[in-house]
């Protein structure tokens, strides 16, 4: 089994619901964004269109971050292909951040909170549980997936632009969409074989 995601760029409306639901699910501190939405405008008035590109860890089959990590803190779960980080092993050398061609890793370098008055009770409960001085990234909400749920960004996407499934199963919806609609990964030239595919807008 290899978990993967398909993101339909035609359906994405750039609402940032994935980014917010991810933050709520993981309680990530400021400056740590497991899921992001990139926005770009192209063309010239009046022929202009706005494009959105939601990005997250690509959970690559040939993950360069795993190879670059000197401690084994970055690793790949054999049973489902999810690339994860063991914060207890991370030394904070950030070599994985330099190895990731998608720039989807973040260094949580000090206790942070969003407001000047100090950490809110929510932040104390959620953000405070993350180790500082280590690298963090998306893990496809592995705990949720193991409990039979969808990742938070998938479950909360209002336009159903994100589809989650088994890439190894040729009959799964993700495999079907990639085949029928010409799904493409980002930076295929990097040879990382990502598990996140995009459907053309």
């Amino acid at each position, binding site marked *: 089994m290899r978990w993967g995601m398909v993101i339909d*760029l035609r359906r994405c409306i750039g609402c940032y619901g994935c980014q917010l639901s991810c933050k709520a699910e993981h309680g990530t501190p*400021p*400056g740590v*964004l497991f899921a*992001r939405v*990139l926005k*770009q405008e*192209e063309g010239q008035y009046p022929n202009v269109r706005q*494009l959105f*590109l939601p*990005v997250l860890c690509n959970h690559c089959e040939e993950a*360069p971050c*795993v*190879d*670059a*990590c*000197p*401690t*084994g*803190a970055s690793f790949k779960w054999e049973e489902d292909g999810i690339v994860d980080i063991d914060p207890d*092993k*991370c*030394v*904070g*050398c*950030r*070599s994985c*951040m*330099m*190895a*990731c*061609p*998608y*720039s989807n890793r973040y*260094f949580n*370098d*000090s206790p*942070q909170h969003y407001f*000047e008055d100090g950490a809110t009770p929510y932040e104390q409960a959620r953000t405070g549980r993350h180790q*500082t*001085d*280590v690298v963090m990234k998306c893990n496809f909400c592995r705990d949720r997936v193991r409990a039979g749920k969808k990742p938070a960004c998938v479950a909360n996407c209002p336009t159903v632009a994100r589809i989650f499934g088994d890439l190894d199963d040729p009959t799964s919806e993700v495999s079907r969409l990639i085949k029928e609609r*010409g799904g*493409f990964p*980002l*930076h295929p030239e*990097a040879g*990382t074989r990502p598990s996140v595919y*995009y459907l*053309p*807008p």
Partner: protein
Amino acid sequence: MQQTRAKYEQLIRDLRGDLRPQREWCEGRGLFLVFGHFVGGVAAGAWLFSLLFDSRAGLGVAFALGALCGISHLAFLGRPQRFWRMAAQWRTSWISRGFAGLSLFLGGGFLYLVPRYLPQAPWAADSAIADAGYVLALAGMLVLIVYKGFVYATSKAIPFWNSPLHPAMYIAFALRGGIAALLITLALGGETAATRDLLLLWTAVTAVVTVFFALEMHAALTGGNPAARRSVHELLSGRVAIAFYGGTLTLGVIVPAWFVWAGLSGPRTLAAMVALGVTSVIGDFFMKYSMIRAGVHLPVWTRQTLQRG
């Protein structure tokens, strides 16, 4: 909180741009990494040339620089107390290999140097323990000279560093730093016998470094990757230009080259040799700093992504 807020705002600004500058390995505590890589290369080069020129003082300096390299790396790490874990992945990770190399270098160097500096040591300079130390330190030295360039060359996020020339350039820089460190050591010790050979070596290695650098710049500019092109622009006319022109070119090449010319064509003063070594070494630091600081992340959203639409 102010500092944290400023860093957060900086990150958000960076993420909004198409070409995001690399900051983790050169700003804040990242400077310790730059210094550690720089001093590690000088240490390994100095060990090599000290063996070749049979300089006990040079070996001592190389060992001390190696220790400084280790301390500097520890100061950079987010969780230095877990440093021992870095030996785990030597099969795939160049950082892990570098850690192993530094450990061999320091361990072997200790075994080799102790009887040379302390005649009353428990083992003699011609004992099997000292010989084992010699071999271990030599192996560590080779790893230290080689691994750094590969750490950068295999960093897929920064196209500017993804050049097959990068490891070769780092090897050449380690040799150049080693020659400069030995020049300083010999001059401070009042030895001038080997300086002419070292000056010629410095000239040859600097010429090699310059050719590698020019080739790498040309490849980055013509290779078609916008991030690599931006890096070259940052280096030559952007936020790193002052460090590059002032530190790398002027202090690292022009000033020491003048000292070399003066030393080869006239009397060689000890002060001039020290000045040559010091400026060359400072130039090496700025070279590494500039190359690392000029790094720009591979843009996630490429022209190809849009064209698929």
